């Protein structure tokens, strides 16, 4: 009998394999420091991809996330730098803004029966355009709060640094798992991905659920955008170009079906870690062009989609709850 966690095991196994391969080849690769850096370097992507996971499980797609990250960064930098607001005042503002932006797209998708692909593509152009209009230049963020937050963290054995971004990611992860498997809304999201029509006949509030899903994705992209400003101490309108595709790739590699109805948040995190480990491998090697990351991810995607087809083709696709 096939376990419903098959794809998850395959993904996790692949990560362990890649990490081991790197550790054997390069000294210093197999350390807690490199492992911890996988989290902190990719936290913004992982947070965004977790939002994307819900969207894809529900049978949709959100192409606007990369642009929302850029818009969030530019808006935050402007509000802090030019208007002198405190970051703690700015963050709730941009988070709510990201959530509303997503909710708006969700409402369009539901009430006008539009394709998520088109609506979020429009959202992507809109957000990117807005960010560029606000400022074409990169805006530096210079605020004592940023220094405090950036310095905050725990030092684990092996010189491993667990910073704010990693902590935020772990919080988001716990919340997302609770949402997916221990709340009614989570059940509704999987239900929509199984069959929107059946879900409606079973009494699922389709409108609210759809809008909430895209709002979550918008909110988490904005959060990813804030986390990103802590890497660069700036906001720039060209941040995260093509990031939506990385997020989708991470979700798929993490075992979520692109057709919806099945997948796990944890899988997405492992998907992001796999992409991170490949990047780390390439930087350790030093001779390989960084575009090899894309090539390997492309091959992995093909392999995972083929695997999903085989699994669902035999009528035993994954299932929803843990």
């Amino acid at each position, binding site marked *: 009998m096939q376990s419903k966690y098959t794809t998850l095991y395959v993904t996790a196994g692949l990560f362990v394999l890649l990490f081991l391969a790197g550790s054997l080849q390069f000294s210093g690769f197999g350390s807690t420091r490199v492992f911890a850096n996988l989290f902190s370097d990719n936290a913004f992507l992982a947070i965004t991809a977790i939002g994307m996971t819900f969207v894809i499980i529900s049978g949709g797609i959100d192409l606007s996330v990369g642009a929302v990250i850029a818009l969030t960064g530019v808006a935050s930098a402007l509000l802090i730098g030019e208007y002198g607001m405190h970051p703690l005042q700015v963050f709730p503002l941009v988070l709510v803004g990201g959530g509303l932006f997503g909710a708006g797209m969700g409402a369009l998708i539901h009430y006008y029966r539009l394709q998520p692909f088109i609506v979020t593509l429009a959202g992507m152009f809109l957000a990117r355009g807005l960010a560029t209009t606000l400022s074409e230049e990169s805006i530096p963020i210079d605020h004592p709060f940023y220094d405090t937050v950036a310095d905050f963290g725990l030092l684990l054995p092996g010189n491993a640094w667990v910073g704010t971004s990693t902590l935020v990611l772990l919080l988001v992860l716990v919340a997302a798992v609770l949402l997916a498997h*221990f709340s009614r809304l989570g059940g*509704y999201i999987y239900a929509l991905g199984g069959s929107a029509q*059946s879900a409606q006949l*079973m009494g699922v509030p389709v409108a609210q659920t759809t809008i909430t899903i895209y709002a979550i994705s918008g909110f988490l992209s904005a959060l990813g955008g804030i986390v990103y400003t802590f890497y660069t101490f700036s906001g720039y309108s060209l941040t995260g170009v093509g990031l939506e595709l990385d997020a989708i790739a991470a979700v798929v590699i993490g075992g979520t079906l692109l057709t919806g109805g*099945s997948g796990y948040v944890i899988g997405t995190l492992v998907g992001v870690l796999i992409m991170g480990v490949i990047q780390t491998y390439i930087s350790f090697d030093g001779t390989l062009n960084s575009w090899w990351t894309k090539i390997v991810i492309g091959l992995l995607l093909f392999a995972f989609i083929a695997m999903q087809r085989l699994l669902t083709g035999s009528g*035993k696709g994954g299932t929803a709850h843990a």
Partner: protein
Amino acid sequence: MTLLSLSKVEKRYPGVKALDGVDFHLRAGEIHALLGENGAGKSTLVKVMTGALEGDGGSMTYLGEPLRLKSTAQAQARGISTVYQEVNLLPNLSVAQNIYLGREPKKFGLIDWKRIHRQSAELLKRFALDIDVSRPLSSYSVAVQQLVAIARGVDMSAKVLVLDEPTASLDAGEVEQLFGVMRELKARGIGIVFITHFLDQVYSVCDRITVLRNGTLVGEFETASLPREELVAHMLGKELQREAHRGDAREQREGGEALLSLQGVSVRGSLGETDLTVNRGEAVGLAGLLGSGRTEVCRAVFGVDKKSSGSIVFNGRERSFKQPADAIAAGLALCPEDRKTSGIVGPLSIRENIALAVQARRGWWRPMGRAEQQKLAERFIEELQIATPDADKPIEQLSGGNQQKVILARWLATDPQLLLLDEPTRGVDIGAHAEILKLIKKLCSEGMSLLVTSSELEELVAFSDRVAVMRDRRKVAEIKGEDISENTIMRAIAEA
């Protein structure tokens, strides 16, 4: 006690009245069959009483109070649940999750999975199902899925349970299991609306029967006092005549050699073993109620559905067509039942629609010139008297009858030896109806063989040399020559 009662319900769609002042009364603790042929309005009525559609007129009373439904969720909350033929549950979720979706018990604000699993297992045991409720619904058979759907409905304190063709894809044992559950629910005072095509099933579980036809109420009957023949007569809208009606003196065209012969052909899940022969130059009618297996015979012959047993001999050779293209190449043609979805290509012109099948037969590497297409189209427009100013009019702008003629022309242009017509006169006006019948007769006299399904008895009587009667997905009788009359066909359909 009357549980749910609908009075003078109306529902209009553009151009059609789907329900025209229909009454329906469901009592507590009864199984009530809702019967009718295609277009009778059964599914519209069900949608109105379950909140999926809002009626345009009339009123509903539920438990003695007026009822207005805006959504299925609201109907469910009031205790009216529906189980559809295509199980409307979520295959990707676990059995337990399907039963509790939207009303999960919680502990400390989180969903209490232990309790859900325990309670679902207990619930399903009452339905004689002992399965692992944590596995995805899709890992179980349709029968189990249907029982799960019923369990969900009943557990949501259903007082009214609507079963829309629940038995269509079940085998005999599974049907019995379902009937057992239905009888138990009935004993508990639940009112069940049961929609089915199988008359045997109606007579084995139902207390009362409501028959609809063309959106109007034919009547409400006690099952025990309604003979089968009368029921069929009500459904088809024919009066049973005391004396057998003799058809026109028909010329006997039998005696030609067999062109198509089916021996023990069956299709898994949709057609029982069937023998059938069509001779050269003969028109064979396929009679039977909706869902009796008429269309399935055509589909099996034409290679749309894969047969699971038996042999098909066409033109002296044993053939088993893997796809319709092979059947077309061998000299068969099929005009499908649903013209709109599987026949016409709406925006293309009449000329292009006619040329399609000929072109498909030739292969794309030998395109047909425009002049050639035009000649072909003009020939058929004249021969079949298609009412159109010219051959370039898009087919979607024609009336139903003329569209049907264009489809006929498309297949006639391939010069088939055997033409399969599935309900050729459905939804066409009376004038076109007569012309299509005339055409069928003419084709026969020219030596073409036809296999025609129809739910209109007088039509079958008018053109058939032989009528094969289908019931419950198998052939139950064959009526020849002089014996063909509306009465004999109706009796054969109804016979127990």
